[in-house]
């Protein structure tokens, strides 16, 4: 397998000061679902937006390497990047209620993606839109095409967003918390849909989530983000079997697992909050919340391999598991 999307040392700053992403590195292989997981504010959405060149004004990105299907994304002009977006790489968002333009019909908003990138008639684009709406499980697509966003439920709107993202048959779909705003049953439907589409369309998916349950269900590979860094990367099975970074372990201990939660033992939690990272920060960003931190954590932290396609960012060796808290 070769990587479809390769990001190395991605840095994103806002207004030249606040560092939202500090050297994130990850690879999305062809045909896989890659999850970026982390708590709010860890920079996972910003990472996705930076890949798409969709950062808000004032946002600045730089990267040692950022390539998509062999194309160096950092060297593309705005115009060239716009030619990729919606065409070969598509994105869906967390807020299906507000992500569609209230003033235009569903059909008009879907059709313009195809006519923009592939040309062709509007009628052909509408046919394609209706076909894709059927594929993502929207009933009566012909009627939906003439409707406006406010006439659709949140789940339907997210399906429309997904269908719209598929208009040009993209290679990569970036999904930024696509189910967070939806209720649980709809969440499950959307996740199943994404898994099916991945197979049918040969899509690679970069899925951003804070929900480890979702990671366990759909991801092939996982990158755990903390304070703008990818602190651990592994296959999903490996990550859940043998997490290495103290933060990953902390996260996993917070998840209630039916049958394993004991009545008189409290569920795990990570003390403290994500620290604000200012300029000149060095060492491990997790050290203020880590039970194993010592003075070496203030220096540069090595990326340690921990098996096949598994590495993590910590001073502790992979066999630290038996260590008692410092």
């Amino acid at each position, binding site marked *: 397998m070769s990587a479809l999307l390769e990001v190395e040392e991605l840095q994103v700053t806002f207004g030249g000061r606040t560092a939202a992403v500090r050297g994130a590195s990850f690879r999305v292989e062809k045909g896989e679902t890659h999850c970026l997981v982390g708590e709010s504010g860890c920079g996972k959405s910003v990472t996705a937006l930076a890949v798409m060149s*969709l950062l808000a004004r004032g946002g600045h990105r730089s990267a040692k390497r950022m390539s998509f299907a062999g194309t160096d994304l950092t060297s593309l002009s705005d115009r060239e990047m716009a*030619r990729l*977006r*919606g065409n070969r790489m598509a994105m869906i968002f967390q807020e299906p209620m507000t992500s569609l*333009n209230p*003033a235009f*019909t569903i059909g008009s908003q879907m059709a313009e993606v195809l006519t923009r990138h592939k040309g062709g008639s509007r009628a052909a684009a509408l046919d394609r839109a209706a076909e894709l709406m059927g594929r993502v499980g929207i009933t009566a697509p*012909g009627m939906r095409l*003439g409707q406006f966003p406010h006439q659709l439920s949140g789940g339907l709107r997210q399906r429309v967003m997904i269908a719209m993202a598929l208009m040009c048959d993209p290679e990569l779909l970036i999904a930024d918390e696509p189910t967070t705003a939806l209720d649980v049953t709809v969440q499950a439907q959307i996740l199943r849909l994404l898994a099916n589409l991945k197979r049918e369309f040969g899509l690679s998916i970069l899925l951003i989530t804070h929900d480890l349950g979702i990671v366990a269900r759909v991801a092939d590979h996982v990158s755990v983000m903390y304070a703008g860094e990818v602190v651990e990367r592994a296959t999903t099975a490996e990550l859940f079997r043998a997490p290495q970074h103290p933060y990953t372990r902390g996260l996993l201990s917070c998840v209630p697992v039916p049958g394993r939660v004991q009545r008189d033992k409290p569920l795990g939690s990570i003390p403290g909050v994500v620290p604000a990272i200012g300029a000149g920060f060095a060492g491990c960003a997790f050290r203020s919340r880590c039970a194993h931190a010592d003075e070496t954590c203030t220096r540069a932290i090595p990326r340690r391999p921990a098996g096949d396609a598994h590495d993590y960012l910590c001073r502790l060796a992979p066999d630290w598991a038996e260590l008692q808290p410092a």
Partner: protein
Amino acid sequence: MGRQFGDTVAFAWPARECGGALVGPGVLVMLRLIARRLAIGVLVAFTVMTLAFLLTRLSGDLAISIAGPSATQADVEIVRKAYGLDRPLYVQFFAWTGRAMVGDFGQSYFFKDSVANLIQKRLPITLTLGLVGLSLALVISIPLGILAALRENTWIDRSVTLFTMVGQAVPSFWLALILMIVLGLQLGVLPISGTGTWQHFVMPGIVLAFTAIPALTRLTRSGMIEAMASDYIRTARAKGLSRARIIFKHALRNAAIPVVSIAAVQLGFMLGGSIVIETVFALHGVGYLGWESIAKNDFPVVQAVVLVLAVFYIGLTLLADILNALLDPRLRTG
């Protein structure tokens, strides 16, 4: 086809797929909205008629002012009888409203002409001036507002803000005089008064436009800033649409909704509020007629002018509501 009503991007999905009905729910919602607004409009017009009638009576004994300062008591009584002012107030009121309904506003005391004729002659001038003013205002303020929004917090944005503030603060008679001096006298490119040619409407149009430009510019600016920061614009960018399409189709369409309705209402203000400008430029429009008639106690004309301007205002407000519903599908579909 009801669903596509007003969708500027012609969207012709076959009706059979839309439930087959020729009259969609959108048209019904629109008709109900128009009917409701029309009913309110009629009530407002009736209220204005009542107020216009009562206020002219409140300004003093009309018989005395018509008869003039040198008239004797007997003269005043003759005038009172001749003009029907001796009748009870409600009889006068219903006599007037009854005739006004069919477009008969009586005779002017001063101009020796029917009020309807007077207004008919003057109205084109005021309407021309209003439309020129509004067109100029839109042509200037919408691009300016978009520009300021896209360059938010830069010197361009600040210059636009300064321009709107100055525009708001400058009295229109002063601006009119400055323009007359510069364009009319020093450069000699435009006539300074009268209504003979289209050039006569340029300067008054500019001055009138300035009464609406500040509000419209600021509204466009804030609407565009809000739209450009919205999630659906992020989606449009994620779709790889061109910058022009994102700005002029996706953002402007939403930002334009309040601008359009305010512009319609502004035109109402312009029609009624052009008295100063009509006076300065010697444009004999309705506003000027109203002013003359007030000065001369020509109360049938005053009442009619007030009513005509009010009806225009009501009509434009109705138009604003309809345009709003056409632009915003949430207002016309269930």
